């Protein structure tokens, strides 16, 4: 374990901005994609019931 304190962890040796933007953007995009597929699935399910 190389982090002495939480603030040291967030600072990432001075590169916090770059590291956290990368990981944050990745997480955000993935969550957004999952939500988008989920909503599309819900919409498709509703229309299926309408047809049946």
């Amino acid at each position, binding site marked *: 374990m190389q982090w002495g304190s939480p603030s040291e962890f967030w600072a*990432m040796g001075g590169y916090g901005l770059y*590291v956290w933007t990368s990981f944050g953007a990745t997480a955000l995009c993935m969550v957004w994609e999952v939500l988008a597929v989920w909503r599309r699935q819900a919409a498709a399910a509703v229309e299926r019931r309408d047809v049946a």
Partner: protein
Amino acid sequence: MSFMGINWFKYSSPQAFHPLAGKMIPWFSAAALALIGVGLYIGFFVAPTDFQQGDAYRIIFVHVPAAWMSMFLYVIMAAWAGIGLGLNARPSFMMAQAIAPTGALFTFLALLTGSMWGKPTWGAWWVWDARLTSELILLFQYIGIISLRASIDDLRRADRASAVFALVGVVNVPIIYFSVRWWNTLHQGASVSMTASPKMAATMVTAMLVMTLGFWMYSFAVTLARVRCVIAERERQLSWGKNASIQQVAEAR
């Protein structure tokens, strides 16, 4: 056609595939969450700080898996497209259709994280390195495929036209990679490379591989969920079509 006691042939039709995909999604999602969790733990708490790049190198734990996935997914998409064209199989076109957006997303992330890594390491947000450039062209091709599909109304034509373009692109990307490398030697530009320092600690490699595996599982889950949407949406169109044509039998006399 039985392999491990499962009748695979049965699942080649969309109707049978739909529930099977539904059963597989939770498992893949759980595996994705677990693997990404473990990967992040190793990446942030076990892997040591790099003595050259400091902690900025930790970006490669998302950058490299995203870049790999963007290429894997393109090749897999092109393979499905090729199978679809060769065997005239609708389910393979649906798979290709479902993979494209996830592939495009990973390509975008690879570019974004690449420039995040590049700024502190090279001092520039963007460098015309062979890998980054081919990644950019890959993104254009993903966008091309998605918009080609979107602008064709006839499903059959949309499937087949985007499949042809996917196959053309699979030849193009390696050519671009080598041509940009060639171009870099000509211009004697910054001789840069995305490969991290030659002696990467074993824990760094482990973190990267675990993250990649997690991204694989994530891609499986999302694509399967999307292919289910595609099947459902197409079925709906089909049932509309059936209602529209009441009398279908042609009588010959």
